[in-house]
């Protein structure tokens, strides 16, 4: 298939060899699971259980609320021992509402295991099942998948792109999934095609995964609508809009969505989860996580239940150092975790533990305008120019010259010879701009209310005046009447 050109990108060392040949293992059942009610973009789920209640595996712990939301389910059977605010897997270390499940080891499940034919279901029914299974984008974005599938009902979609890029260093969970469960992934893709009522799916896999390419090509033979495409190994290949350009030659206009071009992008792991949810009515309660990094003794690809503490994964894989950096996700865009006492959530594709040698803390130097950040930027921005403005506090002009289009892929920071934390500045400025916009919205609201009050008061004044005038007129009329009457009586006498 012809691929289209794209700009920028970097070639970070992959370190995939640490874990790419290791088969997916099952992590032993932990004694406690900490299941956050928010594991997705959108509104948190509404808690549906109470403390002391016993639950079965797959039972709903929190209902989806709002249009963009997803339910969460019990990852095993046991007793709810607490519902509390627990540290979220985020650098801030802030807490989110979390259900604590004491597992009973029986792992009894609720869902039926009789296979269903998804192709007899209507697209709406499939999307509803996907939504009810709590499936979100498993590539890391964690956007509710059902919302994307509904787009097929409301918009004209012609192409489904399946993202098997896995361009982040260290991560091999999607690679292993495609190698070991290719048929299931292809089945998930077919279900999506059925739901979107389209006949074209492109599976993009980076050239550094030859076995996965082969397995997926083999599995896709039963389905001519699915084409497996080898794409070059270059970060950030997994950026959905980049994939659209490479595969279709079209660009998503600024401010628009992929669906406006008739394209929808899903991750391979999401395709697998959709297969499980629709065929076997199995909610999303586990996912494959790569545990790797140079501070890990035995790197692994493990299937982990949502809510398992990261510390359990570290115990399972072994640490060879006590001084390390703990990252959820890949090293390019992953979040540094405050500590290991945080749960694995739906969007977590990897736990990468790096020693200080590999992730040194370096002080930044002056920019020498080498413009490598410009060459590396896949969007076509001027990082060095944006950062100068942000340093001066001029967030608005930074936003105008490109910050609003920044995807935060960190390619610029990666290549910068002066070690300037460019993407950190950009994320910081984005937050500042959001704050400013919030203030602006608030000001506008206040202004509106003040204006409404002014109008209301004016109306009251006016009606008061009118009433007074009316009373005056009435009084005058009464007076005149009285006078008339007296005149009358005078005249009559």
């Amino acid at each position, binding site marked *: 298939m012809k691929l289209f050109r794209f700009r920028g990108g*970097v070639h*970070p060392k992959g370190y995939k060899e640490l874990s790419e040949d290791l088969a997916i293992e099952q992590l032993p059942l932990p004694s406690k699971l900490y299941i956050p009610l928010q594991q997705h973009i959108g509104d948190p789920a509404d808690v549906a259980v109470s403390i002391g209640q016993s639950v079965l595996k797959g039972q709903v712990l929190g209902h989806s609320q709002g249009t963009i939301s997803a339910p969460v389910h019990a990852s095993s059977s046991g007793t709810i021992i607490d519902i509390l605010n627990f540290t979220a897997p985020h*650098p801030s270390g802030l807490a989110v509402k979390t259900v604590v499940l004491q597992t009973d080891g029986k792992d009894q499940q609720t869902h039926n295991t009789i296979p269903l034919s998804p192709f007899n279901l209507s697209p709406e029914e499939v999307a509803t099942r996907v939504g009810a299974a709590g499936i979100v984008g498993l590539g890391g974005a964690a956007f509710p998948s059902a919302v994307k599938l509904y787009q097929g009902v409301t918009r*004209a979609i*012609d192409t489904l792109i399946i993202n098997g890029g896995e361009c982040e*260093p260290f991560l091999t969970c999607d690679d292993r999934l495609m190698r070991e469960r290719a048929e299931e992934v292809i089945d998930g893709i077919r279900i999506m095609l059925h739901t979107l009522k389209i006949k074209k799916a492109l599976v993009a896999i980076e050239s550094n995964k030859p076995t996965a390419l082969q397995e997926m090509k083999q599995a896709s033979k039963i389905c001519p609508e699915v084409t497996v495409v080898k794409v070059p190994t270059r970060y950030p290949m997994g950026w959905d*809009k980049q994939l659209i*350009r490479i595969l279709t030659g*079209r*660009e*998503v*206009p*600024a*401010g*628009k969505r992929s669906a*406006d*071009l008739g394209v929808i992008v899903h991750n391979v792991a999401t395709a697998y989860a959709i297969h499980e949810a629709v065929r076997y009515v199995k909610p999303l309660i586990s996912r494959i996580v790569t545990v790797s990094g140079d501070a890990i003794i035995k790197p692994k690809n493990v299937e982990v239940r949502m809510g398992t503490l990261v510390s359990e994964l570290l115990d399972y894989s072994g640490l060879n150092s*006590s*001084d390390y*950096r703990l*990252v959820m996700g890949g*090293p*390019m865009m*992953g*979040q*540094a*975790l*405050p*500590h290991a006492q945080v749960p694995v959530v739906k969007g977590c594709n990897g736990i*990468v533990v*790096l020693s200080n040698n*590999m*992730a*040194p*803390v370096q002080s930044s*130097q*002056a*920019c*020498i*305008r*080498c*413009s490598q950040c*410009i*060459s590396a930027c*896949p*969007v*076509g*921005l*001027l990082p060095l120019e944006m950062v100068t403005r942000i340093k001066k506090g001029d967030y608005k002009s930074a936003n105008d010259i490109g910050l609003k*289009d920044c995807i935060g892929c*960190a390619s610029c920071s*990666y290549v*910068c*010879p*002066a*070690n300037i*934390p460019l*993407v*950190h500045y950009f*994320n910081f400025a984005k937050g500042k701009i959001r704050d400013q916009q919030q203030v602006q919205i608030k000001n506008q609201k206040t202004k509106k209310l003040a204006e409404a009050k002014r109008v209301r008061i004016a109306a009251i004044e006016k009606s008061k005046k009118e009433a007074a005038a009316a009373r005056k007129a009435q009084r005058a009329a009464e007076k005149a009447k009285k006078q008339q009457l007296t005149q009358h009586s005078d005249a009559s006498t």
Partner: protein
Amino acid sequence: MKLAPHSAPHTHSGNAVSRVMLHVIIALLPATIFGIYIFGLPALNLLLITIISCLIAEAISLRIANKPITCHLLDGSALLTGLLLALSLPPWAPWWIGVLGGFFAMIVGKHIFGGLGQNVFNPAMLARVALLISFPLEMTTWVDIKPLFTPDAPGFIESLQITFLGIPNLDAISSASLMGHAKTELSLDRSLSDSLTSIDYSLTSTSLGIVAGSIGETSSILLLLGGIYLLVKRIISWHIPLTMIATIVVLASLFHFIDSERYTDPLFHIFSGGIMLGAFFIATDLVTSPNTKLGQIIFAIGIGVLVYVIRTWGGYPEGIGFAVLLMNAMTPLIDHYIKPRIYGRNRRGNPMATPSQND
């Protein structure tokens, strides 16, 4: 266990400012060593004086600006400026040329603008041009080649005398640079074929660098090798050097074709004077060249045209310094107008039109 908050990325290419500078210095070494070899110990003295002056001026400036001194001195940028400046100086120039040049380059060329990365002009070229305008005699006194270990070469004591007390018996050993010679002869209405044969011009000797000239500008072949090294190491891209050389070749070929007795041939142009040093090491200066590839091409065409114009019709035999400085001044303007197109937007920065879904 201590986990401080870190922001992504948690990995780095390993590229560093000092690495960039180091590679450029390595690339310049062959031409530098060759220059010292053919011009003898006075050239080495001048080179060391210039570099040490740059380092001292850098340290003083950093001290005044309250910046950390050691880490900036070690980044190699002052060393590189000193080296580039020295390579563009006449080999037997007196010590104070090196000192003045070094101080001018670092203080006026770099730190007045705010230090590393902030300067508009290439510091080495700024100093060279300032010296050329202020001290035309010292800056155009070229000596005949006197390779080390030959009977003619000045000894250690003699070299110190040359550097610190001046060149004895100047007329006996001074020589014209090739470009200067061609220019003078043309002004005397002699045709090129006469004037070039009169000083035994051959392409081999100019390209190898066995001619009178600046310390490090004469050996075009060694500079070209250094340039290729930088290209291979991806410190520079081909855009500036190739475009600049191609522009000069095109212009020189055109005029040489029109009147070969008046206009020198293209190979003469690119293999003499400071073209190779300029194309690979001066014009490619990261700080003072445009950010985008297209901008760099425009910038390089500008330098090529200016070099040719100054060499051919201007008052100076060599124009690389002026040409680079003039185009350095244009860099902010080029960067203002030439920007990469942003994904999903047109060149003006407006969102692209949504294509109709039926196409």
